[in-house]
């Protein structure tokens, strides 16, 4: 009897553990997408025709959902092209990223990708690499001025904002009363702000409130702000919050005032959690714009390949955002990022920075 009890106990514990494991993997299902590799038709240029080419990726941080996907995409694409990649992860330590960069320069690689970091820290080292004849592709670091010879790549905040705000203008029409949740002083949010101002002006909207703060718990803290703002101006018909944590805050604020029937929320960014909120019955969040970090990581690596082959020809590459509406998600029964990628191939960026000799990875 005791034995049986113990056995039952062990079985329950094991089942719970298994359940916990499977829960974990489905949550991070986006973390290790295999992707499919398209066929390359052209012949490889030098130096790719002579075996694997060594490059380094110098990351400020490889942790977190976004960066894991980014790195996954970069690795998959690198493998398809024939790169041998050395990844340096500074774990968000800026000083370590500087030393990593020096090690990378000294290691005799054919190219270096710098992923995030501080321009003040990385610029002198990027220039040092360029002086040593090593091409550098930078993702999301403001190096255009201090290292003009490096290739800068970024997800286009302007196109993200434009995509979702065009939808907002279509939904609300002219002369609408709107609310705004944003935090200025953070570069990507500033760039989204510029588009917002232009759209507000073009549609003659009146902005009833502008709130927002950046804290350790953005969604919760901004929910309070929006809640208070809506107490004062409950007659707005739309709220723009150009970062998904801010949008979540706006959504909570709308729901706590029970105004979801009259106010629509518009956001930027997309994740599994965001999809769940948007597809919930009666959710005020009707549209967002996003990019796929996997696809961006892959596209950055393609830029590196083109730059090494001397075929890139530009010094700045933008990755466009894609509009995603709640209606689209519901119509296509999209439950998570995997579904979304299948239904919305524009997220793949496979046509961005390609060449006939590069087998593009699609997710």
């Amino acid at each position, binding site marked *: 009897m005791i034995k049986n009890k113990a056995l039952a106990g062990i079985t329950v514990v094991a089942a719970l553990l298994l359940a916990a494991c499977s829960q974990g993997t489905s949550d991070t299902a986006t973390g290790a997408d295999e992707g499919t590799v398209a066929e390359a038709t052209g012949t490889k240029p030098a130096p790719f025709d002579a075996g694997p080419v060594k490059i380094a990726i110098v990351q400020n941080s490889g942790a977190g959902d976004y960066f894991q996907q980014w790195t996954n995409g970069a690795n998959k694409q690198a493998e398809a092209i024939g790169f041998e990649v*050395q*990844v*340096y*992860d500074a*774990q*968000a*330590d*800026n*000083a*370590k990223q*500087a*030393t*990593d960069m*020096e*090690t990378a*320069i*000294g*290691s*005799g690689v054919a190219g270096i990708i710098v992923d995030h970091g*501080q321009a*003040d*820290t990385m610029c*002198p080292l990027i220039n040092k690499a360029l002086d040593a004849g090593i091409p550098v592709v930078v993702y999301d670091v403001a190096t255009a001025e201090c290292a003009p010879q490096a290739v800068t790549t970024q997800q286009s905040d302007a196109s993200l904002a434009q995509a979702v705000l065009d939808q907002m203008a279509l939904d609300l029409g002219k002369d609408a009363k709107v609310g705004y949740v944003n935090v200025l*002083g953070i570069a990507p949010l500033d760039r989204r702000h510029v588009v917002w101002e232009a759209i507000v002006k073009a549609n003659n909207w009146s902005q009833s409130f502008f709130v927002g703060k950046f804290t350790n718990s953005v969604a919760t803290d901004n929910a309070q702000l929006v809640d208070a703002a809506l107490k004062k101006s409950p007659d707005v018909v739309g709220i723009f919050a150009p970062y998904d944590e801010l949008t979540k805050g706006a959504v909570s604020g709308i729901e706590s005032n029970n105004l979801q029937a009259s106010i629509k929320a518009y956001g930027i960014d997309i994740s599994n959690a965001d999809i769940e909120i948007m597809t919930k019955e009666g959710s005020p969040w009707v549209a967002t714009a996003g990019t796929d970090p996997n696809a961006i990581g892959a596209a950055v690596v393609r830029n590196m390949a083109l730059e090494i082959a001397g075929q890139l020809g530009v010094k700045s590459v933008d990755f466009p955002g894609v509009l995603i509406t709640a209606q689209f998600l519901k119509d296509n029964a999209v439950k998570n990022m995997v579904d979304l990628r299948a239904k919305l191939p524009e997220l793949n960026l496979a046509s961005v920075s390609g060449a006939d000799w590069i087998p593009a990875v699609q997710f």
Partner: protein
Amino acid sequence: MSIGKTTATTGFDLRDFIVKYGFILVTVILFVWFASTEPTFRMQNTLFSMLKFTSVVAITGLGVTLTMVVGGLDLSVGATAGLSVTLSAMTMVIYAQTGPVALIVVLLGGALVGLFNAFLIVVLKIPDLLATLATMFTIMGLKLVPVDGQSVSSGLILRDGSVAPGRFTEGFLLIDRAYIGPVPLPVAIFFSLAFVVWIFLTRTRWGRVMYAIGSNPEAARLAGVKVQRYRALAYVLSGVFASIGGLILSSRIGQGDISAGNSLLLDAVAVSLVGTSVLGMARPNAWGTTLGAVLIGIVITGLTIKGFPYYAQDVVKGLVLLTALIFSFTLSRRKSRFVPAV
């Protein structure tokens, strides 16, 4: 004591050999392994960037070593280095002062933190570990007050809406970026300071008195040593060394990064502890700390180039420390006492 006598023989003693040279041997073996399997590792550039990376930890560790010599331990060194980064950025970016002014401000800041620690420990009689722990938290918070919790870089918008007038000066940035011949300046600073600390601890009266205090403060006091003065001195020096480490960090990052120095404490304490086992000294010493820092540098750089993830590196760091402690406490016949009791 009796065990030592019974096993001691006139011939070759494996245990003595391991205790004395084990660590140097491990370092050499690792070095040879990395160098022979990874062509990148044996390049001169890699070796110097490895030493450069190590220099901040090593210099800060030398300060920790001094406090360990007098029987204490300074847990505030990482926070002090972080404070130095913010102080130097504020001096140059917000107050638009020159590099040398920033340098002086930073060193004074480090000395002040040391004095504060000394005050807590010597005057208020708070145990070393607890006093420096409190200092650590206080500084980590305090340094964020004048900058509103923001990293300080040129173009920063100040509280009154104006733009910060200054920037990191070229001269200041040279602290990390200059070379003496083929040797990076931080590496030169690191080895010079190691040499100075070695001379101080082993060739001067003050150093020997500090060791005496560490092994038996009561005996030292009875012998007429002003024990508290030496303890205070150790903490002030530790603060100054941490601020020198902070200067190099600041110059490397090129902005007042508020998270700088956060990971430094554990590494600095670890290299000092690893250092106790070198040459079977079983006590904190300058060359031990230096070699400990270089060993950790070799391990981190080697494993990075081999493509190990960062958590594997932490595991290895932990094992290195554990091995060193076994050398010092378990295998060594000398009585090890350099860790403060709370």
